[in-house]
Every structure is written in structure tokens, then in C-alpha cells.
């Protein structure tokens, strides 16, 4: 079986598994990293949202064989380390605003929020309501209103 190597939450990992297995299952079923959740498997619910090289991606829709050795995959578990703190400011904002209900979508929501803020910064502009409108992550508990508040608060505290 082929060896798959990439960097996961700051550390290189190697797994023996076929190329075509999607990254979500490598993370969850083989590596026991369960922060990214399954909600659809076809890149629509966004519950599995994680980062690759600092940008948001959905591991349910990427073959592990398409990851390169140097690719840095970050899941919710590794997010705090990216800022060298116990909690990323976005996670803190989520706690301050008491966002989670069942919590199932929230790791994905937070990873999407961080990427959205970074994206608008790259574009050299402020976060707009329309950016929040386009966050695709589903929350079946309907925490959308608090998510909007928390993204804005988290953005203010992100360097």
C-alpha cells in the first residue's frame, strides 16, 4: 500500500493507504483526528473545513494522494498553534459569543471564519456583510446570528 506523507498540525505524518482515499477519512478513521466532521462527503455542508497551507479546504473532497510531502494540513486541533496561543482569537470569540449549540458544525465554522478573514485581508479590505452571507457552512441548529457576531469579533482580534 502506498505511503502518504504530509504535515498535519505542524508535524509530518505518514499513513499507509491508497491514493484515492479522501483526506477526511485519513484524518478521522486512520489518524484519529476527529475535529473535522462529516456532514455530506461532497463538499457542500463544510463541516469538515480545515486548512491547507493556510487556506480553507474540504478534506472530504481531496484525495490523500494529491497531498504533497510539504503540504501543511491544519485541523481545528492545530489552529491555536498557528498563533502560538492556547486558543485562536476566533475560538475565543466563539466562546465569548456562546455560539455553539450542538457544536457539530462549529470546528468547520471556525476554520471557515479564519480563512474568510485572511482572504479579505489579502484582498486589502474590511470584512463586509456580503462576506458573511457567503460563508457556506451549514448549521442545522441555526446559530447563524451568533456566528456573524463572532466572526466580526474574531476578525478584530486577529493580527
Amino acid at each position, binding site marked *: 500500500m502506498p505511503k502518504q506523507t504530509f504535515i498535519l498540525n505542524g508535524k509530518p505524518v505518514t499513513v499507509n*493507504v*491508497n491514493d484515492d*482515499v*479522501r483526506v477526511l*477519512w*485519513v484524518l*478521522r*478513521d*486512520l489518524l*484519529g483526528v*476527529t*475535529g473535522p*466532521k*462529516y*456532514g*455530506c*462527503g*461532497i*463538499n*457542500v455542508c463544510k*463541516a469538515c473545513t480545515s486548512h*491547507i497551507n493556510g*487556506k*480553507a479546504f*474540504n*478534506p*472530504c*473532497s*481531496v484525495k490523500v494522494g*494529491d497531498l504533497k510531502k510539504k503540504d501543511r494540513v491544519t*485541523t*481545528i*486541533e492545530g489552529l491555536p498553534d498557528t498563533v502560538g496561543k492556547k*486558543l485562536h482569537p476566533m*475560538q475565543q470569540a*466563539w*466562546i465569548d459569543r*456562546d455560539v*455553539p*449549540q*450542538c*457544536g*457539530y*458544525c*462549529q*470546528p468547520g465554522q471556525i476554520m471557515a471564519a479564519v*480563512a474568510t478573514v485572511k482572504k479579505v485581508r489579502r484582498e486589502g479590505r474590511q470584512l463586509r456583510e456580503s462576506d*458573511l*452571507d*457567503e460563508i*457556506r457552512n*451549514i448549521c*442545522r*441548529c*441555526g*446559530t*447563524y446570528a*451568533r*456566528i*456573524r457576531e463572532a466572526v466580526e469579533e474574531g476578525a478584530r482580534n486577529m493580527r
Partner: protein
Amino acid sequence: MSIAETATDAGNMHNPSSAAGSGGSGLGRRSFLGYVIGGTTLVAAAELAAPARSEAVIPSLPQVPELYDLEDLQTDAALPTSALISVTINSDGTASFAIPRAEVGQGITTSTAMILADELDLPVSKVKVTLAPARPELMFNQLTGGSNTTVSTYTPIRVAAAIARNALLDAAAIELGYAVARLRTYEGLVEAPDGTTIGYGELAQKAASPDTKQVEVALKEAKDRKVVGRPHNRDDALAAVTGQKDFSMDLDVKGALPTMVCRAPTLNGTPRRLKNRKKIKRMPGVKDVVKVDTGIAVRARTFGQCIDAIREMKVVWNKGSAEGESDQTILAGLRRAELPMVVPNVPILAEQIDADFAFAFRSSAALEPNCAIADVREDSAEIWAGLKVPILAQQNIAQAVGLRQDQVKVNVITSGGSFGHKLFSDAAIEAAKISQKMKKPVRLMWHRADEPRQGRLHPMCTSRVRATMLGNEVLSFEQRNTSVVTDFSHGLGEIITSTIDEAPTDVGKALGGLGFSETIFTLTQELPYNFGAVTQLLNETDDRFNTGSMRNIYSPDTAVASELVIDMMAKKMKMDPLEFRLKFIKDDRTRACLEKVAKEGNWGRRMPAHRAQGIAVHKEYKGATAVLVEIDTRPSTVNRKIRNAVTGPRVTKVVMAVDAGLVINPRGLEAQMQGGFMDGLALTLTSSCHLRNGKFLEASWDNYFYTRQWNVPRKIDVHIMDPGVDQPGGAGEAGVPASAAAVACAYARAVGKVPTAFPINHGEISFKPKTFVPPVPKSPTNGLKFTY
């Protein structure tokens, strides 16, 4: 009866008020009975029984829920139960309590910790609330539903806590050498007048009793509460935002490999045989393949490999339960079953409104799909799943795998949402059967596509209303719902049969002879208006579908229909919708909610073309809700483009007022109302399932249009009313009906036409249905193209 109200003056027992230094004689306060349980550390217990109901003033023609509603019924169901719930004080100074309910996102572990903390005088952080496993001795007292958790557990929990606190005080009195009355408790400490303190942890063993004894206790008064009623963040928020909160599929159960089921193309089709078993068995990662009654199960190293295997399976299927049927044929069946109205002739000068609405099937699936871990052995079984009725699950699983109930251990795991879906134990039973056949532990998860296609749905129904008016009075209001059968086999049915005898006589009479569904309909529906002769009835037909309740049972559809008709009546009488409602509303608590949203939401402000306000109320769950919305239906808004999104009309502003009786955690209540709004919005505008030729077309979130950020109002205010009562109401479902109705009313006013079918976009299918054979879509591989 257990936590009996006694006539005794609590003063000759411990008087917690004076011991707490908060004054008050204790005279006339009700006292309750409970127990100190024999053991090595302090355990205090109470029976999980009903607090006394407050007597309502009964109007001339009360509907059943005014006398006795579903909340009462669920609460009374506790009475014959002799089992106890207990609070343990640990030697590290913490208190632990296992609540016999399920946490599915509604925040009950947090609110329960708050209630305990208040009564114990312990910081909330030191109260550990866990979910109790199936406890058969609790009978039907272990069902999480009907927004009933706090309604039924509030008093028993406090009794147990108060007993624990008294026992700690007794022990401290000996240690500190002062009478109990001179001690005070705070933050988990007992303090003597000289300032010496001793911690609960240190007292836990000293306060333990060698044998179980019955004691009497009075509860804290409202003015002495420090925690209940103040906003509190959730106890599991940190775990949730760091990915540490474990759901069933995150548990590490040895050998429980990923397992999925290949399901039939048509609803409830069953497998005859798998034609290419050898090939499937040889696929990468595949370990086991077995046939069960619901399909062909495959167990593999990863879920991805289960999906690949399902896509390769060649299965011969038996027919489904609704072969050839479509929305139209089912609707026609409902029409045939509709009950006649009773007011056939209108008085000569009276006016009559007849209205008729249809509501499509909707999926109650949570974001976490149906799932369960099962390890079934020869003589025992263990299950891990999010279950709201674990006792029934335990019985059903035992039966399914041929074990005795006591051989099945059922662990209740926090769920990724429920909305009624997890009242049933479909996945747990299926997992048990598969594990038994494979002789291995399995981690069963439904594919998302399985949920709308084979999972439980809110039934299709119609609601007809006939109202008659004479001058400025309403003479009658009749509502007739006709619905595809709702499955109540999750235990509420049993609660009813065992409890109905205890209902007040008139209620018993009114309910006698009705089936489960009709009974629940009658227990929950209450039109809070003085409309003369009011009748609301349900009739059911067609039991071929997998159904259940969905963050309410009948209320959202009923409310949409009745509130739309109320707007029509107001129009006929040339009255403003708010003015009309205020004229006819029955009770002060509902009226107060309505007035609140009207004021805060600036009701009646001028709205430009294609935009409008809508207002609606709902009364249930020992409380009331009012919602005001503003909607924008301009073509430029309706047709706004977002990639792969159904946009449509946009609600731009929401103002909600909720009276949920005594509020334990206002922050949690606000969250439940906001979430309830998102559900109501989806029910009215976007979310439904289409039945075509025996199959439901929807297969994922890109077909089933639950509310998304692009539909979310940018402003949503929740006002929490204080009705000054000491009885908590329900919160989980309370936000939905008035929200759905207010959006419908606003939409009708904005477009100048009352819709007759919901959700309003059900008429068009705006997606290409995914494959039925294989039953699950291929996982994409182009994810790296969409990074951002």
C-alpha cells in the same frame, strides 16, 4: 407521590434561608420530601416527579391545552415512577449529577448545572452534569422531547440539591461547633460566625449517611437565587470550539470499524440479494459485507472505502413502501381523508373565509447523520449513540438481537442536533443487527444521501380553516389538519396510554378514544384568540412513510395556516393585523409578547413596494412567543446570485419576544429562539422534500435547502419576557411556530397574495437529482480547486 407537598412548616427542619443568612421565616413555604442515600460519600436524592401545577383561570370555552397540555402529560408521566435522581458530593468539592435526558444541543447540561449550583451554593464550574445511560427503572421518565426537560426536572433537581446542602450544614455544625442556623454557605464553603470555613469536599464523607433516610426540605426562594436567571455560557463551549467535544462517531471503541449501508433506490425498499459479493469483498479496505433488512452493510477500514464499496454493489431490490407515488398522489389521498367542517351555513349577514394550505414533506435530519456504535456479543451488547429515549432503544435492541433487556448496555452520547430525529433509535437498532451478523463491533453512519431519502421526515399535511365573522365579531374558527401518519412509536404513545387516566376529568373525556397523534394534537394546539366556537382537529391517513416530529410536532404548520387566516380576517374587517390580534387575543402573557415585538419592531412603519412586515404569535410550552419580521421580495433580492445557492426572498429584520416562564439561562434561551427562527424561516420559504415515483429526490444539503447564511436576517433581536412565575417553560421548540407564521404573513403582504403551499419554493425543483443506483454520490476529488 413522592416529592410530596406537606403541610408541615419547614421551620422546624433546617431552614435554608436563615442558614444562608438570607432571612425569611420559612413559614408557609412548601417543603418537599427526599432522601439522603446510605453510602460513603454524601448522596442526596429526590424522585423525579412533578412540581404542582399552577391553577389557571379557566375561560368560558377552554381548549384542552389550557387545562392540561403535553407538558403536563409528560410531567405527570413521572408520577408512578419510583426511581430516584441523585446528587453526589465528591471529596474534591465538586457535585455530580447524571441527568436522565439527552443533550442534543439545547443546552440542558448547562442549565441543569446552574439550577444545582444555585441550590447548593456551589460555583457552576464545580457542578458536573453528565448524561445518564438507559435506566429502565425510570420507565418513560427518560424521554427528551416536547421541550419538557426543564419543565419536569426543575423541582426534583432542586430538592436533591437542597437536601445535600442541608446534610453538609449538619456535618459542618459538628465540625465547626456552631448551630446550623448560624452557619452560611457560599461558593462551596460553609462559614462559621468566627470566619472559619470548611469546604464541601472535606464534608462530603462526614455528611454521608450509613443508611438511607427520608428527609424534608424547603427550597430557596426566588430572591435568593444568584445563578438561575442570569446569562451563562455553555459548559461545553470550549470543547466544541477546540474539536474536543466527542460525538458518537468520534469515540474510540476498539474494533468498531466504519460501517455503512447500501440502501434501496425507492423508499423503504428491501434487499433481495447482492450479486457481486465476491468483488465487493475484494475491494480495498473492505472487511465484512452482510445483508440486513434495510440493505447491504459494509464494514471497512475507512468510511471512504465503505462509500466506494456501496457504489460498486449490484443489488436486487424488493419493492418499496410507496412505489409509483408522488407528491400529487399523496396530496390527493390527504384530500380524500379530509374531515368536513361543522359550520355549513353562515348566518345571513355573516362573512366566511375558507382557506386551504398544503405543507410538503420536510427532513428532520441533524447535521450529524444517524449513527451509532454497536458491539453485540453472544450474551451481551453495548451501544453508543445519541438517543432521546434510551430505555425504548434498549428494549428494541434487545428484541432485535434476541437478548434480554438487562444484557444490553446503552450509552447516551451527546448528539450533533436532534430536532426530533433522535427520538427514534433507528441507527442504534440497525447497528446492533449489523454487529450481530458480522460478529464484530461496528461504527455505523448513514450517508447524508440516506437521510432525506430513507430517514425520518415531517409528514406532508394540509390545514384548512373556515372562519365566520359577523360585524366586528368572530363567530367561529375551525381548523382541520389532515396529515400523513406521524410515527409516535418512540414512547410518547406509551406515556399517553399510561397517563391519560390521571388527566383532569374533562380532559380525559375530551381525549378518550382518540389515537396517539390526535391526542398529541389536541394536547398541543391552542389558538390563543377569542374567536367564538373554536375547534382544531387532526385526521391522519397513510402510514407508508418514515416520519417523526421535527422541532415541534404540529405547531408550525397549524400556526402558519391560522395566522395567515387571521391576517385575511383582519383585512375583511378593515383592521390592521396587530390591532386585530390585540382585540381578540385571549391571555395577558401572549398579549404582552405581541405588544413587545410591535413596539420594538416599530410595527406599522411604512414599507417600500415589495417589502412588508409580518407579525404572529404562538402559545405553547407553558409560555408564549411573538415574532415580527420584515421581508424583502424585490426581484433584485429574490434573484440575487450566490454560487450554487437558492437565494429567494430575504427576511431583513426579526424581532422576537418569548415568555418561557421562569428562565434558567437567558443566554441559552436566546440561542434557542434564534435557532428556532432559522427553522421557521426554512419551513416557510425553502426546505422540503419532493416525492417522485416512490423516491425522495433530495440527497444532500445542496438539494435540501435548510437556512444558510445568505438567507439569514442581518438583524435578529430576542426579548425575554418576565411573567413573574416560578414555573419554567419549554424553550427548544418554542421559537419555530410563530417564526414560520410571521414570515408567511410578511411574504403574503409583500407579494399581495396569500400562498397556499409551503415552503413557497416547493413548486419548482431547482436542482438535478443525484443518482439512485448507486444510492450515494461519488465523493468529489477537486477540493483543492476551491481553497480560499
